[in-house]
């Protein structure tokens, strides 16, 4: 391997990225925008959920409960109705998302039996809000009286009784600050996975499309030199992006960072190599820029958002799907990030995901170097 050639290739790549507005945008703007979007988008501070109340008893106790709902920031009482028909109509028309019905024997039962229940109806078309609304309602009721239980049912949407999703309710109410701690590291992984793959996925296909590859392969340049020369600048750019995202995570989103900086840097570099290698591989296999970029998106966005453990916990998935997640590169990085940030794990504690990631990197780079065809047919 001739270093002068590698350097020349890297320098050319940097100049091209610098002078190409589309690449620059991917490099600079995309991570920033995505981090903010996903960071805030997964903001679970859902407040002022429209609430409709149906007080069938009208006692002082029921009123007291309703006053709690009114006082809560989570809800906004928009209507008080006096028939089931009216409240269901309000739900159907979307004027409210949650309905609270207090039974006519509410205080009686509390006095006599020491326990009572209150009925809640949620608009189930929007699962998110439904779950959250439910959670909040439960907390309001629980705060009112330890002996009162909230029975609930869903209307419209997936009207069947759906899971209470205990993990979700744990994450999503009263813990929204902590939830961010889980979410943001996942977002960082996703941003790096996306941006990294996009950057390199265009690099080879662009040269084929523009015709520069044909003259490049007629020079003494070897596929390995090409790989190193092209990936290196993107590695540097990727590390800058990663540093930027992680800084934002810690200082803007205030995710606590309990681990060692060195661990973070090393594991991030490793992940970046995997991501860039993946993009390069795609680029070597698909000779059109548009095709490569779309495949890169498909291969990174969907798996990362669904199967990396960032949104949905892996151990909750069906077994076959869990097996598939071993193929998802971001899965390892998400695990590592969460551990480093929140648990302060050290390198030796992370031996398993790190070695798997190293294996992954080796496989990808090997395939990438081989996939690049130096001949025209």
């Amino acid at each position: 391997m001739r270093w002068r050639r590698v350097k020349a290739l890297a320098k050319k790549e940097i100049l091209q990225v610098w002078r190409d507005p589309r690449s620059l945008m991917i490099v600079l703007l995309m991570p920033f925008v995505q981090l903010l979007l996903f960071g805030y988008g997964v903001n679970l501070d859902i407040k002022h959920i429209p609430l409709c109340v149906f007080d069938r008893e009208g006692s002082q106790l029921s009123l007291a409960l309703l006053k709690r709902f009114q006082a809560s920031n989570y809800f906004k009482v928009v209507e008080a109705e006096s028939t089931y028909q009216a409240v269901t109509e309000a739900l159907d028309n979307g004027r409210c998302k949650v309905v609270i019905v207090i039974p006519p024997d509410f205080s009686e039962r509390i006095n006599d039996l020491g326990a009572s229940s209150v009925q809640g109806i949620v608009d189930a078309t929007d699962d998110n809000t439904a779950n959250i609304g439910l959670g909040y309602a439960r907390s309001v009721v629980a705060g009112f009286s330890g002996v009162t239980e909230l029975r609930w049912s869903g209307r419209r949407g997936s009207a069947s009784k759906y899971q209470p999703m205990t993990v979700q309710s744990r994450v999503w109410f009263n813990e929204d600050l902590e939830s961010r701690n889980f979410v943001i590291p996942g977002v960082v992984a996703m941003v790096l996975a996306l941006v990294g793959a996009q950057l390199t996925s265009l690099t080879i296909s662009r040269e084929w499309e523009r015709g520069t590859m044909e003259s490049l392969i007629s020079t003494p340049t070897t596929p390995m030199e090409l790989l190193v020369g092209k990936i290196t600048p993107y590695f540097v750019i990727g590390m800058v992006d990663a540093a930027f995202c992680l800084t934002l995570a810690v200082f803007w989103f205030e995710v606590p960072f309990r681990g060692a900086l060195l661990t973070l840097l090393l594991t991030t570099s490793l992940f970046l190599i995997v991501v860039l290698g993946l993009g390069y591989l795609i680029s070597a296999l698909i000779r059109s820029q548009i095709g490569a970029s779309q495949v890169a998106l498909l291969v990174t966005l969907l798996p990362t958002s669904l199967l990396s453990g960032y949104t949905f916990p892996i151990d909750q998935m069906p077994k076959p799907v869990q097996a598939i997640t071993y193929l998802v590169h971001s899965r390892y990085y998400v695990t590592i990030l969460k551990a480093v940030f929140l648990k302060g794990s050290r390198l030796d504690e992370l031996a398993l995901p790190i070695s798997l990631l190293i294996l992954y990197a080796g496989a990808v780079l090997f395939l990438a170097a081989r996939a690049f065809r130096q001949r025209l047919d």
Partner: protein
Amino acid sequence: MTLPVVISVSGLTKRFGELVALEQLSFACAKGEIFGFVGPDGGGKTTIMRLLAGIMPPDTGSIFIDGVDVVADPQRVKAHISYMPQRFGLYEDLTVDENIEFFADLFEIDRKSHEERMARLLAASGMTPFRKRLAGQLSGGMKQKLGLTCSLIHAPQVLLLDEPTAGVDPVSRRDFWRILYGLRSEGVTIVLSTSYLDEAERCTRLGLLHSGRMLHCDTPNALRKLMPGDLVSIASEEPRKARDLAARTEGVQSVLLVGDGIHVVVDDAARRIPELERVLSESGVPFDRIEKASPTIEDLFVSLVGQATIEQ
């Protein structure tokens, strides 16, 4: 004194699925020659270039360049050659200087000698004032000249040019050829393909390709002598009438309409010119000049291919 053979090709065949692009092609080039391939578009011209450059393997046959077996060891030949594909891949977002430096680095040329060579080549193509300009902003002719400069920066022994002046205006084309001629004195062997037949005449030797086979391979002058008959050029304001009359005249093999007259292929110019004059005058068809002309490579190609097609 015979010059050493630098390129030697034998029995080259290449198929793409059912299409036979090249069939049993054989030829050799001596040092300092400019060898030109002429033939229809989409035919084997680009394929030959790619095979010679080692970026595509042939189905059968052998290629030796500068002593290197290209088929067995393509990577090794790349330092000896320079290949300029049809759409020469210049990096449009890099400047002229940056493009040249990039190729100089790829071939690991020593810094000092490359700077001096670069300045010389750029001056020869009139590109010195454009050194800091982005390649994408150059005109077609200048892009080709830049491509040529990039190809020459490592002083290759063999230059492979695939339709290097396609779409380039005649002025830039002349500049380009001046550079090529200059290279001959440096002993560089040039193989090029062209569909500009007027350009083909500038080559030392020509290979006429048709349907993947080499019809003829010789110097332009020798090829011209191959053409049966003589060419007579008649300028006339009524070319169509002239054509109809000439076609019926004895000894005329073919007539071609051109913008301001006709070109007639006859068996013997000395005999037929007075006859044609007579025929035209008698019918009152005006004509300005009637004289023997040199057949162009196009005339030659048409008559040779025509023969070959009949023979097939």
